[in-house]
């Protein structure tokens, strides 16, 4: 992350969660990146990453994992993004990226850095 910054790029994280009220202001200021709250899921939809959690998976989360998404996302919002990473050039064009419903498959940090280097001509 410091490397991405040192190359002149910004890092922004987006989730459907409502703003976190459990963090103190000091903690919020200590986080070095912007964590954005898409409380209406409009941005997730615009990026074609939005999905409604299937009933079978919802039951698994509630009964086996003890995770109630409504606690984080708000009432009635059993919805999530496909985990995704996009590297945008200064025109907003996607130059590299990855999106996979299997949340254990993520874009390699080395690939992100290589894409940023390519954009800035480093």
């Amino acid at each position, binding site marked *: 992350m410091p490397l991405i910054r040192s190359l002149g790029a910004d890092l922004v*994280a987006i*989730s459907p969660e409502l703003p976190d009220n459990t963090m103190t202001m000091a903690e919020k200021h200590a986080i070095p990146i912007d964590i*954005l709250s898409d409380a209406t899921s409009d941005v997730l939809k615009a990026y074609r990453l939005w999905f409604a959690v*299937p009933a079978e998976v919802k039951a698994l989360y509630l009964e086996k994992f003890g995770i109630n*998404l409504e606690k984080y996302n708000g009432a009635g919002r059993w919805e999530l993004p496909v985990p995704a990473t996009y*590297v945008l050039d200064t025109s907003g064009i*996607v130059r590299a990226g990855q999106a996979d419903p299997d949340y254990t498959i993520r874009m390699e940090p080395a690939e992100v850095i290589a894409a940023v280097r390519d954009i800035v001509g480093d």
Partner: protein
Amino acid sequence: MSLKDRIAEFNAKRDRPPEIMAIVRRGNEYVKESGASGLRIGERAPDFALPNQRSETVRLPDRLSKGPVVLNFYRGVW
């Protein structure tokens, strides 16, 4: 070690029962079939304005005017 290898190591340690993994896999297939496939390389990313953790509005065009932006969509803190 690559992130991929570290995740593989984590999954091996976690060792979830096969019946749970089957539900997760079916869920992932459902999402794939729903067409939620994200942006394509070369496509222009839609603009947005969203609040950050300090309730400040962050606008994508503002950030792009300063340099490249790495966007990460994640499911949540849980």
